[in-house]
């Protein structure tokens, strides 16, 4: 597949935004149970605003992927069958909830909804945060399933795709949260760094697992099934057009095998190893957390590029040779 930059931005920005929100609400939940000191409402509020910034960036990027963005609203209609349609519904819902979450914190509008028998006081922000958490995961699932549900793209057609979207988004969000905390509430940084390390290690494991899986994939479709002729030697001599077509533009990344060989270790390093190292160092130097986030973000863009580029569509069998 040809990686589209709109989709690379869309998925990485959303992932970071979702992860950041999850990190913030995780913190609030810890605090609710008294495991961490509750932070100021401004902290959660501004954190949510930062998450909104990323989510908004993702949303804007998504429009660049559409040929007819003015009709984008139509894409909410097919939620019964289309993961893309579901994403289109879940994304604004999630953004709305994050927005509300931020608003109630910033304005301190935190009426108690219920007090549990254990004495735990559930205020509005907790309810909204829980809803936001559910929607964040739902959005991860939608995004992941957009890719994972396409059975023709076998590199994607795996639960690992969804899991990795969650883990990489989480990793990115928690590192962002760590950086955010280092600036706003330095005392809480270690909490986020600790979780970030755990999630990043898991993300690395998940991504490595998918790389290993994909390396062992054998194409299900072959030249033989594509044209229905049984012979070990079948070569295309002409794809029927010489100046390119949608099929050549959408499905071939056009980069050399060398480029692909370089980008894989590059994204593993930038997206996972380097951030982990910086996170470890970051315990001592908060500024490095910002660097860690930026480098990881670049790494995840490379990862996403590779994610698309590695996916080999069966239609490519029909588009091998200009002649």
């Amino acid at each position, binding site marked *: *597949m040809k990686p589209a930059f709109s989709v690379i931005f869309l998925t990485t920005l959303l992932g970071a935004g979702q992860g950041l929100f999850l990190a913030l609400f995780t913190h609030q939940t810890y605090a609710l149970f008294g495991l961490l000191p509750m932070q100021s409402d401004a902290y959660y509020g501004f954190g949510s605003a930062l998450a909104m910034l990323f989510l908004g960036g993702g949303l804007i990027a998504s429009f660049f*992927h*559409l*040929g*007819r*963005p003015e*009709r*984008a609203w*139509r*894409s*909410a*209609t*097919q939620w019964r*069958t*289309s*993961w*893309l*349609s579901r994403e*289109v519904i879940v994304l604004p819902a999630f953004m709305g909830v994050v927005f509300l979450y931020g608003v109630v914190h910033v304005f301190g509008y935190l009426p108690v909804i219920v007090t549990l028998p254990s004495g735990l006081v559930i205020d509005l922000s907790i309810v909204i945060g829980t809803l936001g958490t559910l929607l964040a995961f739902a959005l991860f699932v939608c995004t992941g399933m*957009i890719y994972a*549900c*396409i*059975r*023709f*793209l076998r590199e994607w057609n795996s639960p690992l795709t969804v899991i990795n979207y969650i883990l990489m988004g989480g990793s990115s969000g928690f590192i962002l949260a760590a950086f955010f905390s280092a600036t706003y509430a330095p005392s809480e940084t270690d909490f986020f760094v600790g979780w970030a390390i755990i999630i990043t290690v898991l993300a690395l494991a998940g991504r490595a697992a998918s790389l290993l899986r994909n390396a062992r994939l054998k194409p*299900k*479709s072959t*030249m033989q*099934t*594509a*044209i*229905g*002729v049984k*012979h070990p*030697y*079948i*070569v*295309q*001599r*002409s*794809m*029927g*057009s*010489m*100046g*390119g*077509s*949608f*099929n050549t533009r*959408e*499905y071939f990344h056009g980069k050399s095998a060398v480029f692909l060989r370089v980008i894989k270790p590059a994204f593993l390093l930038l997206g996972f190893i380097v951030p982990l190292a910086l996170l470890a160092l970051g315990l001592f130097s908060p500024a490095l957390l910002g660097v860690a986030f930026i480098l990881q973000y670049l790494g995840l863009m490379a990862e996403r590029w590779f994610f698309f580029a590695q996916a080999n*569509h*069966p*239609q*490519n069998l*029909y*588009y091998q040779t200009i*002649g």
Partner: protein
Amino acid sequence: MTQLALVIDLNVCVGCHACVTSCKEWNTSGSAGPLCDERPYEANPTGTFFNRVQTFEIGQYPHSETLHFPKSCLHCEDPPCVPVCPTGASYKRKEDGIVLVDYDKCIGCKYCTWACPYGAREIDEKQQVMKKCTLCVDRIYDMSMPENDRKPSCVKACPTSARLFGDIHDPESAVSLAIREEGGYALMPEWGTQPSNHYLPRRKTKLKIHKDELERADNPLKVDGQLPKPGKGESTMDDVSAW
């Protein structure tokens, strides 16, 4: 229920591309049109076509075959491109099974093409909506046309009549007969998409020559004395065998 489809006979397709451009010319000025072309007179001209003829070589010289292979939307019975569409622009008609794009709903997200293993859809890069073979739905029901013309443009054009058109759910239709009797097959059956379009394989006619067919009593060489009988004086076994 009706399922309209094409059956493409690779046994007679000579790769002339008539189906490619007759499709383009009908549809660019039809309900799917225009089908835009980018850089039409410059380097790398590229436009939207519903149908392409490709060429494959099978085997190695001298045991090689050249196969011309027309490819368009296969109008799958269970089209994977339809459920993934977020807007409902991609749909399959109940009445005849034709898979269509509603150009007024399409947002050009290209997601449907990911869900087509055959590469049968091409975006119109100018209008930014997805386009594909319509089986000339705007011809086949057009009662203002003579009945003979009410078929897809490619089918009408094809000089070798390598393209049959009809209802594959009607067991007695010409297309069903062809699939049944001439070995019609589906592309990439491994995906379970149940393409409605089928392909007919190459069939070879051979001539078996028996050795005795080369020796005939009425060989004309005899008439001109070129297959002579032995001369009267020549010796035979008859002369020397006495049992």
